[in-house]
């Protein structure tokens, strides 16, 4: 479902070129939950950005399903994202001008799906926010906002869900509730989950872990 080969990302700083990621080879099977772990600055989020087609690699290739992402232009990648990918972010990334319902409707509307309102309302009910449809993000707690973000991420029934530190901005008990929900929906809908986290306990709930260190994958079985 997700594959990368020889993936690298190099940026140019005042001190010279800097490799954030090098020689990343990986394959993630459909329906699996994979955690990308590593300390701050190890390149986790950069890898997520490349795998999701939000950024272009300096070297190597990325495939999402059958799409060769780095061969597509930005609009082409956007189209693939719209069709296959859902996102959950640490900072929720809800549009403050839209209500909870409208935020969830947004991807459906972008894809011109039928009855976006009904589908969005159903999803919000599923994440326990039936009473909060008309609330704006500012009127919701952090946990509630992340649940709206999860509902939004699943609204298009994505084949792959990318989650970037989804509990990073939540206290531990709220975080746990949100993660339970995420995994539940993931299972229900047979979604491939790529989760970036520095939380080992959370990573342990995934079927596989990919550990990054200084921009490289640490082979399985190696102690960090």
């Amino acid at each position, binding site marked *: 479902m997700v594959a990368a080969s020889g993936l690298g990302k190099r940026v140019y700083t005042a001190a010279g070129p800097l490799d954030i990621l090098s020689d990343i080879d990986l394959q993630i099977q459909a329906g699996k939950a994979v955690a990308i772990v590593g300390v701050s600055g190890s390149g986790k*989020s950069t890898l*997520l*950005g490349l795998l999701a087609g*939000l*950024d272009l690699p300096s070297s190597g290739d990325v495939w999402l399903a059958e799409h060769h992402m780095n061969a597509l232009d*930005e*609009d082409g*990648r*956007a*189209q*693939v*994202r*719209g*069709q296959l*990918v859902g*996102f959950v*972010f640490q900072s929720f*990334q809800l*549009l403050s*001008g*839209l209500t909870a319902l*409208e935020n969830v409707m*947004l*991807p459906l*509307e*972008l*894809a*011109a799906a039928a009855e976006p309102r009904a589908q969005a309302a159903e999803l919000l009910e599923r994440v326990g926010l039936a009473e909060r449809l008309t609330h704006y993000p500012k009127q919701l707690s952090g946990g509630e906002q992340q649940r709206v973000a999860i509902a939004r991420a699943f609204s298009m029934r994505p084949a792959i869900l990318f989650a*970037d530190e989804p509990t990073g901005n939540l206290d531990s008990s709220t975080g746990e509730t949100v993660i339970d929900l995420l995994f539940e929906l993931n299972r229900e809908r047979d979604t491939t989950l790529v989760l970036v986290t520095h939380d080992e306990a959370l990573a342990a709930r995934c079927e596989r872990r990919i550990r990054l260190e200084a921009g490289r994958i640490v082979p399985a079985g190696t102690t960090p």
Partner: protein
Amino acid sequence: MTHATRWRLAMRLLARDWRAGELRILSAAIVIAVAASTAIGFFTDRLGRGMINQSADFLGADLVLESPRPVAAAWLAQARSTGLRTSETLKFSSVVVAGDKLQLAGVRAVAAGFPLRGSLRTAPGPFLTDAEDAGMPAAGEAWAAPRLLTRLGLDSGDTLTVGEQALVIRKVLTFEPGQVGSPFGVAPRLLMNLADVPATGVVQPGSRLTYQYLFAGTEQDIARFRGWLKARLGASHRLVGVQEGRRAVGSALERAERFLGLAVMAAIVLAGVAIAMAARRYSQRHFDMSAMLRCLGASQRDLLGLYLAQLLVLGLLASAAGCLLGWLAQQGLLVLLAELLPMAPSATSAWPLLAGLLTGLVVLAGFALPPVLRLKGVPPLRVLRRDLSPLPSNAWLVYGIAIAAVVLLMWRYTGNAKLTLAALAGGAAASAVLGVLGFILLALGRRLHTRVGVAWRFGLNNLWRRRRTSVSQILAFGLALMAMAVIALVRSDLLTTWQDQLPVDVPNHFAINILPDQVEAVRDFMAARDVPTTQIYPMVRGRLVSINAEAVSQAVTKEAQSDNALNRELNLTWTTELQEDNAIVSGRWWRVEDSGRPLVSVESKLAERLGIELNDYLGFTVGDEAFSARVASIRSVQWDSFRPNFYMVFPPGVIERFAATWMTSFYLPPGDKPMLIELVRNYPAITVLEMDLIIAQVERIFRQVTLVVEYVLLFVLLAGFAVLFAALQASLDERLYEGALLRALGASRRQLRSGHLAEFITLGALAGLVAAIGTECLAWVLYSQVLHFDYSFKWPVWIAAPLVGAVLIGAAGYRGTRPVVERSPVVLLRER
């Protein structure tokens, strides 16, 4: 994304952004720009269309022949045989008397059939609602303009005297066809019957009169007669058709539109700056949303469509509101100018509305498009890395589009590429100079910050830190305050100068049209009443037709062809004594032996304008007779001495054979005015020009016109406020955060508020200072180069402008920064 989805989403986001207040400044700026432009647009359109609709009505005929003397009866017979209807009127200035009051009036005596086209409008009493009137004054009657009645304290049914003839006022005249050429007439109008003219005794050989012959008929008949007549016209005849009549009023309107257009452009450019600032912030605040939408699969086209749809709808709505406001403002303009307008405004057409909407969209596109276009370039990766922003817009693009928009709009007002470029270059140069000045003042203010208290230090630091926006605000307000100060200054100085120009004992009255056989009697009349008069001069009305045997139209430069002296009859005189206030510049004054020799002395400025030199031969016509004279001297004349003065002075014995009237000037203290009534009653042909009243009337017109300019400048000031609020909004997030931090560190609300107050008072005072410096320079140029006034230091401006700036901007800025202390620091810091 389908069109429908994009559109729905765009409107939803627009509604939310509107509620959040993000787009209010942007809209307000559009409203101001559109209101300013449509106010002028509606005003000139209504008057212009009024003029076109009514141009035949205006003229009162399809064709008018004007002549200083009656024309051959055969001409009128020819017109009638061509199938035209004819009528005639006689126009002259005369002092009208009622009881112990007198007033110079523009009299028009009309014959049966007048007007041939259109109709008179009258009201039953002064300032009552008027209506069309199919009649005309019967013999023994007069219809008078409201202003004449007010001046004389009369009402319908009262009696006034024109020359020796008493006339009963039957109606109040509100509109009279044929008053073309001078939309802003000075003397109030009086209409009477032509049959009464002989009895007035006003018409004498040599009197200043205009005979008007009116013709109406089919287009072909008019064209045929026009062709026939043209071949027979003399230099003193003037033919006015519908086209010419329209052009005369049209060009006055065009000038007004151009001049007010410049003020409107200043408002539009400032509004544009506010729009650019607001759009920049709008764009920045939508980076996250754009990144998220990209993440969710929206294409660049989707984003562009989404934002452009919002911009379009916002632009149209705000422009529509601006049009409405402009229409209201235009009503105000009509009220301000009601008395001066030559015509009834026509109903509004859709054109200014359309132009207003377009103006709004062009300003919006010119100033808001570049920052909004940036949104499509937001990298989707921004959802993970907040520090990623789209590439900044290309500076060429930003300024290019804005300048293109300004040029487009400016061209609309000037209709002239050269003028557009000149105005643009002038505006850019002035902005650059004032901008640099603002920056220097800001830097000087900054140096004070170590010597002031904490609040002032905070304020001065804020100004310096955001010095680019500070300078733009200083510039915006400086410009608006400067324009207003210059207008106010010129008005008050012109008015006082006019008043000062009539010092005690300088002649303040002119008596003209004194008949030759009355000259001695008038001299005795004055002497008997101890009224000192200047010399009494003869006046012969003649035209300058050639210079060195070449027709004047060919002999002079292109610019000089429109010189007033060539297009009307001049007053020619003869005398032996050189006037005290005249000086010979070249050549020599008359000697005894010059008597009877064809020589002439020419006024120096006229000579310069027309390129006349010593020993040139000038050809004149008086009536049908032509003669020439050699230029023997060039004279400088002090025109403001209020003595009779002449462009052309002959030695005795050259033009005595022509019919002449005489003129003099004299000083009369205000209490002695009743003497004038006696004078006019004894010598009805005499026209007395009361300079004090004429100056008062010119003052009134000037006051009204400057009021209109200030009215339009209010929009410039409003646009300045839009810039202030846009700049405030742009810095609000930063201010909120700093405010929260400072409060967390122990600063009191009071301290913060004092800092804000200090900041905006300083900003306003600096803008006022820039305005004062600009005003001083502009006034100096205007006074020394254009108005030729003595220039003195304008100290009141140096106090008033900074004070007004400090109060206005201090108050607005203080109000605008209120959210900084209203919101909880904890919430603010957490949101960050």
